[in-house]
């Protein structure tokens, strides 16, 4: 049969399996149907819930403006899919085209999409992590538990790690009037994602809102009472804090363990795929029937020297899922690259933080509009004489302009004179990212070199 005939048959009566039933999995399923796939579609998800949205969990939900169990994602198309929820994929047989489930079942596929995302990195000391009052925040069940505890007016909340999620949690707690301590190993909040210059603004914001912010500090131990309830945290400077809630916000771990030994190029840094979302095997050869999208993927990006990027961003999951789904049922000449310019938002302490590009690649940053002191500005990052990223605090309207600059490789520092340029914006300063060999939990963008089979992992949990 001709190649075209096989593709037609795949589109008509093929079997597509999606492992990971969250944002990327749902959007891919919708795209498959929209593009005319009429074969069998199976979504496998280990959470017992239908796909829901996570960003509200650290914002509206903790503020009590929305309910943790009511953030299900809207549907745009009838999916006519087979849902296997509450059951995890436990193994993959690439040669046979089969996914093994942890209830013993097996599901065969002609095309497989992996969207298993990431999970919260737990507190590294298991007995301490078990204490009543120690939380992480990744799932709606996590959010429901945490929100219930916050509603019970704890004496103090300790947030361990001031990346985006930790900072948003601290913000919600302050808005609820709860005393909050934030312990951050780096020099400032958000330093891994945005660098030290912008991190200082994030630190000012936290302190202005009454957060007891402690930077350059590690939590060395969590102590419980005789009933197993958290009562105290010990810090690397020898002090301790009485607290009955600790939220561990030390970043995420990729959900790839189920692929161990399968022969797929999957490891702690995620699953490597080509620009068309096809997964690599461990030999560095691209597969033809296995695709990847969302937080679990690492894929090479043309705008950033074809280095592999991992993006823990909502927008990336949406865009990459659509591309992967399209490519799964298209001939090679019709396939599209995933060329999405990284972008995310965060809402904390009443400020809208948005970014485009890859700030953590930035060597220098310039305040192109507004002023750091006003907490309202646009910072532009440069790398090797090019605009590589931009971040705005309450100035979202400028970002699209800088996105175009990034896309066109515009020179850095910017030569034009921009609106509302202040004196501090006349000269770029070092962006002040932490030494990349010193891992942080902060960046939600990870640049991980050129090797599709790179299995190294750099994070070491913050224990004193």
């Amino acid at each position, binding site marked *: 049969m001709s190649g075209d005939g096989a593709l037609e048959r795949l589109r008509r009566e093929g079997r597509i399996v999606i492992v990971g039933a969250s944002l990327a999995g749902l959007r891919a399923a919708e795209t498959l149907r929209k593009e005319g796939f009429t074969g069998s579609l199976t979504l496998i998800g280990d959470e017992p819930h239908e796909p829901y949205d996570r960003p509200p969990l650290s914002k509206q939900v903790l503020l009590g403006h*929305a309910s943790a169990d009511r953030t299900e994602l809207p*549907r745009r198309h009838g999916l006519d899919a087979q849902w296997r929820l509450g059951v995890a994929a436990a193994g993959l047989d690439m040669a046979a085209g089969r996914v093994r489930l942890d209830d013993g079942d097996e599901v065969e596929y002609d095309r497989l999409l992996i969207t298993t995302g990431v999970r919260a990195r737990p507190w590294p000391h298991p007995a301490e992590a078990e204490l009543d009052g120690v939380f992480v925040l990744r799932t709606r069940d996590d959010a429901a538990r945490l929100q219930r505890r916050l509603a019970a007016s704890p004496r103090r909340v300790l947030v361990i790690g001031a990346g985006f999620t930790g900072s948003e949690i601290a913000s919600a707690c302050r808005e609820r009037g709860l005393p909050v301590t934030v312990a951050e190993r780096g020099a400032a909040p958000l330093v891994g994602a945005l660098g030290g210059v912008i991190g200082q603004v994030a630190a000012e914001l936290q302190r202005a809102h009454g957060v007891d912010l402690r930077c350059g500090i590690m939590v060395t131990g969590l102590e419980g009472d005789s009933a197993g309830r958290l009562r105290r945290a010990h810090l690397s400077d020898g002090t301790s804090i009485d607290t009955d809630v600790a939220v561990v916000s030390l970043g995420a771990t990729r959900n790839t363990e189920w692929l161990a030994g399968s022969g797929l190029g999957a490891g702690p840094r995620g699953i490597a795929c080509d620009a068309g979302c096809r997964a690599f095997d461990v030999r560095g050869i691209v597969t033809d029937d296995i695709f990847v999208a969302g937080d679990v993927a690492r894929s090479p990006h043309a705008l950033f020297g074809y280095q592999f990027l991992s993006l823990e961003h909502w927008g990336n999951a949406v865009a990459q899922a659509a591309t992967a789904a399209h490519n799964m049922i298209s001939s090679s000449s019709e396939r599209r690259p995933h060329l999405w310019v990284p972008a995310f938002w965060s*809402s904390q302490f009443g400020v809208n933080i948005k970014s485009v590009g890859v700030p953590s690649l930035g060597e220098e940053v310039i305040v192109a509009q507004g002023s750091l002191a006003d907490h309202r500005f646009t910072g532009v990052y440069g790398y090797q004489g090019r605009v590589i990223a931009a971040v705005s605090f309450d100035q979202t309207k400028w970002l699209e302009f800088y996105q175009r600059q990034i896309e066109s490789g515009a020179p850095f520092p910017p030569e034009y004179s921009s609106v509302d340029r202040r004196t501090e914006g006349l000269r770029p300063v070092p962006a002040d990212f932490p030494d990349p060999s010193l891992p942080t939990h902060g960046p939600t963008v990870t640049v991980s070199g050129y090797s599709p089979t790179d299995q190294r992992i750099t994070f070491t949990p913050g224990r004193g």
Partner: protein
Amino acid sequence: MRLVVDLNRCQGYAQCAFLAPDVFAMHGEESLLYNPHAEEAQREQVLRAATACPVQAILVEDTDEAPATMGEGLSGVR
């Protein structure tokens, strides 16, 4: 009814907060907070807000396709 806002797209025009204030609210100068599960009684306002959004960032559940509730942990076709 379910909805989601693409906040990468949102520019803080606040049309939605004006048209459906029980569902969308500005938080600070330009952050939008919304309830991802609006009351059925809000449907008309939410649809109006979605239509009015200058950057079309609001995605609302397709009415005809409202999924039947499914028991937790079950398998089902939908």
